[in-house]
């Protein structure tokens, strides 16, 4: 197994991404994160197949309002190191890395904002480290084990399995927006994944979704689901109204599941990557919740 490290030049001139890199060594790998602003920390957890770039237009609004934004790239994504073996990636490893980072930075009083695969990872971190977490913000994700999220998602998994290392990351993100992406934004989503081997983490995620009860991720995700059923701290559910991969009924389920939840707030004309379609509205929703 090799580890791919994307060159710094690939990240030199991305649109709306002027942030200083921060590095954290974990398990022999270098994990990248953003650490912007000062104040109560907000942990922004990305999913498949994105990276901290996804939050670029949310971060400045949080820091301007007096919050600290900590934005990791999961191992295999963004500027973090990328083992090129798909089988290296597991649900446990992603959660362990995120937890180690939160411990290293000793983050407390956290607001954890999760999106897509950031949900299973970030929400598991939250329920396993409840003493560090005050609030949850849940965007377009799911933690149900034992079945596929939707027909659209199954088609997406099939497509990923078929194309393998040829996976077009930028195109995938663009397809999950209501308004499409500008060329330079699409290129920025591609920037961390210049070679087939660098896409192993992105290729692994769909198969880590526990679509059957016997799936290796199923037991852990079921525990997260159960823990959320007794989560009494505040939780906000915000969703892209046009998300076809994880339709808004998933938002309804989170609100029904979590005793402390408010919402859902659906954003019209926004799809799965609502941070692209409606960054102002997403930032405003988080800030209102923090106020």
């Amino acid at each position, binding site marked *: 197994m090799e580890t791919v490290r994307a060159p710094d030049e690939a990240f030199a001139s991305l649109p709306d991404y002027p942030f200083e890199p921060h590095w954290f060594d974990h398990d022999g790998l270098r994990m990248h994160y953003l650490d912007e602003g000062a104040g109560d920390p907000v942990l922004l957890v990305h999913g498949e197949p994105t990276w901290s770039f996804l939050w670029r237009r949310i971060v400045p609004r949080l820091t301007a309002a007096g919050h600290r934004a900590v934005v990791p790239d999961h191992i295999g994504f963004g500027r973090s190191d990328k083992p090129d073996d798909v089988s290296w990636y597991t649900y446990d490893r992603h959660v362990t890395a995120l937890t180690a980072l939160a411990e290293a930075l000793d983050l407390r009083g956290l607001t954890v904002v999760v999106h897509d695969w950031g949900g299973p990872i970030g929400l598991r971190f939250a329920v396993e480290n409840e003493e560090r977490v005050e609030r949850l913000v849940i965007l377009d994700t799911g933690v149900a084990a034992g079945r596929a999220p939707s027909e659209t998602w199954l088609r997406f998994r099939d497509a990923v399995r078929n194309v393998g290392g040829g996976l077009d990351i930028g195109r995938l993100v663009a397809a999950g927006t209501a308004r499409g992406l500008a060329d330079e934004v699409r290129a920025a989503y591609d920037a961390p994944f210049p070679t087939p081997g660098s896409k192993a983490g992105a290729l692994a995620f769909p198969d880590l979704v526990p679509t059957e009860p016997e799936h290796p991720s199923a037991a852990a995700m079921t525990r997260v689901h159960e823990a959320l059923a007794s989560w009494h701290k505040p939780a906000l559910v915000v969703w892209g*109204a*046009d998300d076809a991969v994880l339709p*808004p009924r998933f*938002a*309804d389920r989170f*609100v029904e599941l979590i005793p402390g939840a*408010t*919402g*859902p*707030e*659906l*954003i*019209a*004309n*926004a799809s799965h990557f609502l941070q692209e379609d*409606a960054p*102002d*509205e997403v930032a405003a*929703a988080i800030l209102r919740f923090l106020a």
Partner: protein
Amino acid sequence: MKAGLRRWGKRLGIALLALLAALTLASAGYDAATSGGRPARELYAGPFVRVDGRLLAYSRWGTNGPPILLLGGFIEPSDVWRKVGPLLARAGHRVYALDLPPFGYSERKGPYDLAAWVDEVEGFERALGITRPVVVGHSLGAATAVGEALRRPHALSGIVLLDGDALRAGGAPGWVGHLALDPWFTALYRLLTRSDLVFRKGLHQAYGPNGPPITGAELRRWQLPFRVAGTAQAFKEMLPNGIAGWTDADLRRVHGVRVVVAWGALDDVDSVAAGRRTARLLRAPFVLLPRAGHLSMLVAPRGVAAAIERVAG
């Protein structure tokens, strides 16, 4: 000194009386020079349907599929749904937009209150054979939608509150109605409802920053319903009532109906915060419509149609 004051007081009184007389005369003159209302049928081609003795105007799109009934708000004719109606029809619905009097082109026959509007919606459904519709209420119309949900939840597929919190508010004290005397009231009514300036200002606020240019045609869309015979009298009757609506406790009583609350993110006629609050009271999802102001159905028709589809399914 005292005598001087009294003399000035007297002069002032006489001057005021003279001004009053002149204004009254001018008003009467203006009223005579301008025309009164015309029958709705002369101003709107239809369709109309007679319900409980009132001639109700409506629009419709689509010929089959599950029905959706759209209700406008204060002073909104059914024409405000001209963008959303066809979208819903294309998605496989029979869509009706009803003018609740004294708005749009329905006959001006009171009373003009919430109970009457809820009756009219029920009567309209009966007259047109509409069963289990989704009832969508914009702004003031949201209160009527909630009224339907409270009265007959099992006869509905769901309700959508659009830019309307359905809560009762304000109202002028009763004596204000008595002050609205002819010919003053009529003169003022005609001056305001024919003023392009007043409508332009109001529409700018209601559309928000992303509305269409306010053309002459756009102004006439909004001004024409005020020419329907009996409209001035109707507004005079409504004046003391305030904004029709419900209490928090009423909203909490809504059960057994699917509900969505949707709101223009830039609405500064009814605040987004009020919308979120109503969504919480109704335990309903809240749909934020980016870029849209209060007239969200005309600025974000796709988002509004999708929000309605959430209930209509």
